[in-house]
């Protein structure tokens, strides 16, 4: 390792100071030594240093709590999984040694101490543990990274499709969820060993790509309201084969399982069990299971969602239509699964109406499964889901003056964070809490039962609960809102693994006896995380400064960049330790190495519509996935930006080559470019330019008598003319300006930061350039163009409308060019205020 590492920490537990010192000296100054003179002290130190202790030297005979008891405690709290313990004692009786080994001690050093032996043993044990720990961390990181990257890649590709489809981004997410639910149900039902959880994850991930072939379908057909003609329908049907071909064209190893699965889904998700589907008319189980499941999921979601050609049907109607066979024939077993999950389905989809949920527990459980797959045995598994979650819990709970609790079924320990233990005046860890005498002092049995009932009625699909309860703090009754989250095991038959929760004091609601109206409680971390994906406009997340700070810290452990942005001031906002937001000097666009505001500022958009938006930034060779979500911090509006870099290395877990980036970048380019003229297209205007502010000037251009060229010389001549005119226009403007083919022979130019006196010169230059255009095959043709130009502040679309008016004025008057300069306040009430405008 190149890095200078801090010294490893060793805890020496022995009741004799002399013995401790002697061991310390023997180990020399390679280690940082912590000391405890009895078991109770050792547990205290362990609690604090659990994450950075490398080894414990533990005596057996000690007052208060002896060495074996320490081992028992370490087992219950699972610390034994992550810290090696070496016993030191003159107790050479075999029963002690055996018991110690049974309890997870790694090694044993007998007295009298020998310097060589002590050093060697300690070094060896630390090394082997450190290696395992390191290995485990590397594996965990890689798996989670790969998972994340896969999701991002899918999100990009499916985003491109939706982008075009005009479908809500939810379709892909819904398919994903329904597919997963169906498969899990199928797994339960058939109890077959053929399918693993990993397969389920993979199929549901790949399902995101089912409609990728729609890229190849002309937009008019894709978004046609009303029925498609037979011919159009045939073209539309081509999307499944087109999708499969696109995937095969990707420069990815074709044996990549995800790609294979995605291929099956793309190609065959319109096949039907009776062979009546397309494109291949496969029948029965000749259709891969993945495609069968996605087909059913697709049908259900299409029925229950609004589309340009149909309204949304209710869940019941949709189910009836499917079971009546109105949407084709499906595998009877799959239909049964759909019926089984039917009740929870609608709710589940509603609850998960969040684009790209980074479902942390799901991810961890997947990692755990992976770890098992890597063949690391039970005793060696150090970073199990449990300890991972414990770390996270500790991290979160240490940072706050709120009461957190955590109950683990396996160890039967109820833990409170430091603050909670202090408030209730109980120990941080209670073994068998329900039998413990201390707990009833805080809450009587009715109240405990009430909470337990909530825990029992929670389900894996709805693991969260909330209940308001009175609890005793220093013998006074205070009201608390208990927000809980039940954790489940990963096994087939889900069982409670534990409960995680938080208590919020809500005295102000209950003490003044104002009851009734339920004021919204401050959100827990869970709901904070969910809240930021809020979809409905009213569902935005409103949090305090301190909560925002915690949220940012939490998210930063998962994403490359997480920040608050105030789009109105273009600045990045920091939150200091006391929770106060402060505008930093750093401009938000600085992160992109830009000198000015982004062309497509989603933060500004989501701040104005209080929603949530996604975009991709293409900077140099990299793609960045950016999510902006409206949040209110202490009542002030901000945008929460989450940014992930997608590099060629990370795409598809490293199998990707830079061609993928090129492919996507090229596709992005294609989306925005007019094929005929090479200028930007109308879509670019609608999506990127229309809502931009402060672009300084806009010109609308329209060729004179263009129709007669088409009529007289035919469309090829017209096309060639348009191409040449576009070249002429582009040659006259700067690189920073945007030339858009608005439609037919109409062009739009958006000028950025041009001085007013330059505008007429530019526009005249364009006119004369267009006049000079000569088509080699049609030398007799002459061209001219009329222009309306507007200079002023405000939104592009407003300037465009004004320019359009001027263009028609220019046409009518045969004036060639007309230009106006709008005063700063005139845009607000432009109509009827023509006098204020300076006309040239």
């Amino acid at each position: 390792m190149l890095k200078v590492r801090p010294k490893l920490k060793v805890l020496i537990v022995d009741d004799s100071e002399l013995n401790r010192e002697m061991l310390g000296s023997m180990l020399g100054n390679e280690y940082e030594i912590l000391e405890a003179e009895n078991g109770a002290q050792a547990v205290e130190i362990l609690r604090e240093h659990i994450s950075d202790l490398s080894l414990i030297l533990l005596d057996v005979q000690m007052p208060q709590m002896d060495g074996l008891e320490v081992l028992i405690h370490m087992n219950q709290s699972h610390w034994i999984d992550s810290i090696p313990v070496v016993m030191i004692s003159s107790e050479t009786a075999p029963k002690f040694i055996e018991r110690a080994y049974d309890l997870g001690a790694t090694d044993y050093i007998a007295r009298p101490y020998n310097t060589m032996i002590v050093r060697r043993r300690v070094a060896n044990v630390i090394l082997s543990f450190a290696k395992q720990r390191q290995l485990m961390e590397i594996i965990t990181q890689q798996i989670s990274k790969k998972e994340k990257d896969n999701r991002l890649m899918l999100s990009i590709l499916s985003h491109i499709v939706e982008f075009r489809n005009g479908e809500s981004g939810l379709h892909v997410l819904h398919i994903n969820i329904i597919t997963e639910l169906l498969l899990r149900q199928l797994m339960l039902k058939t109890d077959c060993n053929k399918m693993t959880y990993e397969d389920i994850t993979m199929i549901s991930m790949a399902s995101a790509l089912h409609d990728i072939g729609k890229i190849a379908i002309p937009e008019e057909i894709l978004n046609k309201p009303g029925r498609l003609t037979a011919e159009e329908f045939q073209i539309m049907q081509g999307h499944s084969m087109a999708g499969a071909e696109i995937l095969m064209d990707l420069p990815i190893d074709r044996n990549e399982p995800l790609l294979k699965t995605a291929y099956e889904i793309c190609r065959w998700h319109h096949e039907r069990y009776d062979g009546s589907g397309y494109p291949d008319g496969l029948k029965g189980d000749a259709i891969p299971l993945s495609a069968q499941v996605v087909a059913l999921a697709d049908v259900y979601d299409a029925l229950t969602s609004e589309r340009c050609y149909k309204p949304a049907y209710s869940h019941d109607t949709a189910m009836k239509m499917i079971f009546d066979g109105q949407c084709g024939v499906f595998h009877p077993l799959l239909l049964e699964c759909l019926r089984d999950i039917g009740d929870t389905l609608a709710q589940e989809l509603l609850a998960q109406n969040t684009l790209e949920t980074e479902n942390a527990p799901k991810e961890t459980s997947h990692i755990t499964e992976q770890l098992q797959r890597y063949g690391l045995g039970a005793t060696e598994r150090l970073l199990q889901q449990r300890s991972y979650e414990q770390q996270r819990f500790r991290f979160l709970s240490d940072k706050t003056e709120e009461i957190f609790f955590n109950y683990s079924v396996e160890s039967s320990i109820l833990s409170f964070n430091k603050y909670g233990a202090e408030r209730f005046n109980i120990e941080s860890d209670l073994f068998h809490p329900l039998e413990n005498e201390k707990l009833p002092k805080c809450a009587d049995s009715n109240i405990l039962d009430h909470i337990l009932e909530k825990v029992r009625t929670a389900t894996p699909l709805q693991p969260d609960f909330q209940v308001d309860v009175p609890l005793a703090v220093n013998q006074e009754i205070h009201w608390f809102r208990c927000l809980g989250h039940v954790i489940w095991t990963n096994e087939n038959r889900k069982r409670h693994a534990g409960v995680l929760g938080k208590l919020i004091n809500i005295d102000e609601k209950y003490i003044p006896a104002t009851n009734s109206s339920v004021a919204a409680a401050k959100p827990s971390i869970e709901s904070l995380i969910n809240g930021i994906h809020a979809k409905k406009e009213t569902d935005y997340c409103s949090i305090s400064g301190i909560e925002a700070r915690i949220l940012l810290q939490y998210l930063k452990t998962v994403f490359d960049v997480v920040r608050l942005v105030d789009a109105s001031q273009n600045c990045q906002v920091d939150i200091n330790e006391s929770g106060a937001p402060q505008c930093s000097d750093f401009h938000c666009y600085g992160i992109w190495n830009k000198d000015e505001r982004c062309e497509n500022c989603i933060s500004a958009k989501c701040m104005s519509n209080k929603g949530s938006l996604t975009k991709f930034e293409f900077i140099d060779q990299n793609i960045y996935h950016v999510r902006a979500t409206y949040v209110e911090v202490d009542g002030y509006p901000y945008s929460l930006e989450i940014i992930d870099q997608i590099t060629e290395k990370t795409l598809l877990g490293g199998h990707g080559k830079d061609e993928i980036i090129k492919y996507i970048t090229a596709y992005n380019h294609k989306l925005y470019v007019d094929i005929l003229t090479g200028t930007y297209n109308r879509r670019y205007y609608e999506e990127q330019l229309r809502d931009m502010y402060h672009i300084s000037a806009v010109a609308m251009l329209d060729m004179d008598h263009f129709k007669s060229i088409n009529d007289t010389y035919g469309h090829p001549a017209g096309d060639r003319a348009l191409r040449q005119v576009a070249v002429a226009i582009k040659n006259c403007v700067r690189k920073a300006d945007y030339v858009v083919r608005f439609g037919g022979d109409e062009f739009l130019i958006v000028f950025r930061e041009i001085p007013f006196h330059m505008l007429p010169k530019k526009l005249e230059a364009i006119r004369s350039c267009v006049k000079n255009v000569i088509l080699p095959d049609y030398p007799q043709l002459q061209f001219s163009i009329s222009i309306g130009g507007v200079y002023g502040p405000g939104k592009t679309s407003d300037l465009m409308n004004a320019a359009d008016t001027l263009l028609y004025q220019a046409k009518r008057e045969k004036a060639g060019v007309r230009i106006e300069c709008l005063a700063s306040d005139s845009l607000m009430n432009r109509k009827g205020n023509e006098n204020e405008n300076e006309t040239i």
Partner: protein
Amino acid sequence: MSLKECYVKLGGDYEEVLARLFSEDMVRRFLKKFLSDGTYRLLLEKLSSEDYPEAFRAAHTLKGVCENLGLSDLCKSSSMLTEALRAGERPENLDVLIAQVCTNYEQAVSAIQMLTGC
């Protein structure tokens, strides 16, 4: 007085200690520490208050310290006391055992004091 002579006087195995602890400095340092170590006093305290379980622990600790420092005679007598106390009750021959521990302790202390000059 040399360290070796000291070990002869207090009834210990000099060669064995040096082999384990590596340097004379280390041995001297911890012998000096032994003088201020409170385990012996704790043992007498617990015995006089007839708290035999705690006395057992103290005797056990004393034994351990002696083992590490190679104070063989004291180690032997405190070991016998430890085993006698293990049951947590007053053993029959307690007084004899205590007397032996006291004698060996005094021997050790006086030898170490001569060595270190304090």
